[in-house]
């Protein structure tokens, strides 16, 4: 995995609602994604993580800030050519396999939809071949193309969703909680599939989730987001070894472990922003790099205490 930067997000702000009742879902968020890596974005409901994904793929407009893909700005107004190119290069996998497929369309149409849009195929033969290949790539049988979504299980439907993305030959895939709605044993299948495809096709993932155990397994780097702001960013194992921000710590302490002795004696750390960050008004926090590659949102006072934790 090289360090070439594929996607840059700079001071992204996304708002919802009309002028006087605006709700800021994403507030001044910045991070980079390197080519070939799996970048995990973790947060709870309402944190803004899904909104970030949707802003990158241009479903939600950015209120301010920039999103830059391979050196080109892709936020705001862009011309048709760039738009078409991005449709191919950046794609999204959705959370709910029961809601993300068109029930009234055959799997063949669902997987080919992108091809039809971009006319990205030669003849009808060619298109059929691409669909077949995509289905095989995700571990489904080509004969499934003539069936309807309701004939399949949740895991299979999610794989159909992945097939329709693959057929576009993308570079960056935004996976928005792709396994949250699946059964436990099916999750492993889909995770393995995503890892396999990444190797085969040199893909880059933005993996949005709230389940830290999964994110830990699959991500190279993780960003933790709370109420629209990224509070900590580090390589996976570094984050788990030295979680600094109190929100990260509370999140980590709450991860369920499949060990009854550990679980029953577990103590959850509760995150109380007002108590922790009592001096933010007078001493606002900044995005500080505390060790190479490990960033945290902290003001000077907090930074000092984090440094001490580190050394101990």
């Amino acid at each position, binding site marked *: 995995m090289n360090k070439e930067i594929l996607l840059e997000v700079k001071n992204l702000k996304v708002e919802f609602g009309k002028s006087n009742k605006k709700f800021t879902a994403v507030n001044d968020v910045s991070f980079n994604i390197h080519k070939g890596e799996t970048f995990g974005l973790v947060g709870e409901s309402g944190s803004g993580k899904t909104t970030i994904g949707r802003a990158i793929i241009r479903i939600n407009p950015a209120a301010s800030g920039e999103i830059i893909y391979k050196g080109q700005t892709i936020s705001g107004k862009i011309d048709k050519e760039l738009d078409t190119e991005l449709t191919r290069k950046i794609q999204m996998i959705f959370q709910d396999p029961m809601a993300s497929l068109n029930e009234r369309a055959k799997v063949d149409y669902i997987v080919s939809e992108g091809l039809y849009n971009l006319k990205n195929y030669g003849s009808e033969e060619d298109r059929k071949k691409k669909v077949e290949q995509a289905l095989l790539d995700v571990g489904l049988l080509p004969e499934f193309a003539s069936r309807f979504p309701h004939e399949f*299980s949740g895991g299979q439907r999610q794989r159909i969703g992945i097939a329709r993305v693959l057929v576009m030959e993308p570079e960056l895939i935004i996976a928005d909680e792709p396994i949250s709605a699946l*059964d436990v*044993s099916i999750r*492993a*299948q889909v995770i393995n599939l995503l890892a396999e495809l990444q190797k085969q096709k040199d893909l880059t993932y933005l993996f949005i989730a709230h389940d830290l155990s999964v994110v830990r397994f699959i991500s190279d780097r993780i960003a933790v987001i709370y109420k629209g702001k990224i509070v900590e960013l580090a390589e996976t194992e570094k984050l788990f070894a030295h979680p600094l921000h109190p929100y990260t710590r509370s*999140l980590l302490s709450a*991860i369920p472990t*499949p060990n*009854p002795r550990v679980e029953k004696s577990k103590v959850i750390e509760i995150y109380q922003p007002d108590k922790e960050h009592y001096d933010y008004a007078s001493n606002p926090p900044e995005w500080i790099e505390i060790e190479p590659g490990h960033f945290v949102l902290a003001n000077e006072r907090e930074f000092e205490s984090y440094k001490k934790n580190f050394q101990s």
Partner: protein
Amino acid sequence: MINNEIVLSIEDLVIKFNLRGQELTAIRGASLTLYKGESLAIVGESGSGKSVFTKSFMGLLDANGRIESGSILYQGNDLAKYKTEDEWIKIRGKEIAMVFQDPMTSLNPLKKVGRQVQESIELHQNLKGEEAKKLAVEILNDVGISDPEIRYNQYPHEFSGGMRQRVVIAIAVACNPNILICDEPTTALDVTIQAQILQLLKNLQKKYRLTIIYITHDLGVVANVADRIAVMYAGDIIELGLSEEVFFDPKHPYTWALLSSLPQLGIKGEALYSIKGTPPNLFKEIKGDAFAPRNPHALKIDFEERPPYFEVSPTHKARTWLLDPRAPKVEPPLLIQKMKEMEVKRGEGIE
């Protein structure tokens, strides 16, 4: 904690549904004993029948479902024989109450939250008016809602997801039930709230002397709350035992597969263990062990005869031919052994 008083006893329950002209057997002869004061977790994936199983204890099966055979014994009555609403009304709420998964849809959006709790009290506890209201406020406080007198007058949309689930629990507890069934109580909630809700349920269990059944597919939740675990697959309970027995000494290949596929056990860069294929079609009659087609350790007999329960200990049994003395010795997969080793190490580390 667990004394040996039996509070609910289910024997060989068979539940069928009429679906689009065909018959589906959702529960294929499940048996279970529930002891007073315990926390039992029923673990299974979608299609395992765990929700249907518990709904049958309260007469909440859909109109096209029916109990074909078997018994559900509660305080000397066989609930499986109940046919009329009048019979079930005596059970629902007052004896057995249920907390559903989605607090958004479990509450009446048009009624004040306090009223909904109070109604539950008035229906089941012989209190009315001011007395009922006082108790409602007390219960709201018990479930961790601050300023209960003020929040009594608020509507569900004024509460966050976690708070709403607390209200739902309050309504269930207000019935003063013997048994509380929690159907995926934390699946719709964030991880930090989840931990708090589970703690709340444990506290309430002590205070109100409840017996709780948790239905879930989340093994982390199970590890947190369960005294005993029943693992369900394709409408049957395939393993039953104390929490530590099932986690550290599982015997059924499905339990092995379930535990092995957890990401916590995964090694970065390698594939996670995953069970191939999908659960069986319950419209068809299943011959032998339902898990056999997906079981890499299947014996020929698994395709022929349904395995009976084999006892591993007085508290632990599993329905697999691998436990038959004539079966070849099969070691649990490496990941399961690894889990056990990790736990042993951790235990030593503490000492």
